């Protein structure tokens, strides 16, 4: 699975993206966040406040309970601040 990180999520994890083999029992975005948090202190810091991290699947905004089946690309980022 292709994962992308932006803004302070990217800075805390220390990379802009990576391709990871996800366990098949991960069904939703929230479950993926829980799994990522256990990968190391940099992930734990990035996802310390999951309510402050937004997600997109295949470049569309999604909610934590959205299933990840069919995802090619999942991105995590802070609430957007453009405009």
């Amino acid at each position: 699975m292709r994962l992308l990180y932006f803004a302070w999520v990217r800075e805390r994890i220390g990379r802009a993206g990576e391709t990871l083999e996800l366990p098949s029992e991960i069904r939703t975005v929230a479950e993926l966040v829980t799994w990522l948090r256990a990968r190391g202190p940099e992930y734990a810091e990035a996802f310390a406040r999951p309510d402050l991290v937004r997600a997109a699947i295949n470049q569309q905004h999604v909610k934590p309970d959205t299933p990840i089946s069919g995802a090619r690309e999942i991105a995590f980022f802070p609430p957007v601040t453009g405009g």
Partner: protein
Amino acid sequence: MSVRVQAEDFDVGREIAALTAGRTDIGAIVTFTGTVRGEAKGRAIASMTLEHYPGMTEAELERVEADAHARWPLDATRIIHRYGEMKPGDNIVLVVAASRHRQAAFEAAEYLMDYLKSRAPFWKKETAADGSGQWVDARETDEAALLRWSPKVPSAKVNG
């Protein structure tokens, strides 16, 4: 679709001219330009850097633009959003809405900005004079601004 995401600056007059060239059906053109403020929370800003999500940014801006066209009788629209490093006073974003009458153009320009601010994947980082950087926090007022637009169009619904 008339959406551009670019590092380069834009010229408001040139964009209006390009949008209206050869057309006599348009009676009202509203533009909004967002610029970099030199101060944030009492702190002087040396520069602002905008990061974005290439691909999704364009897709979100096109969705917002399509929603505006579904809600108002618009003859033409343009959205330009810059990324990269900018200085205080520099242009960040341009929205142009053109219609036969002013009400649709005014309302659509405001709608485009409200949705763009809450949906388009951009993130601002401010750099102070001493070189320290700070990510700009999202404002709850930006999300609240969406509530005044009734969910008339399914694709305009909040889904994130």
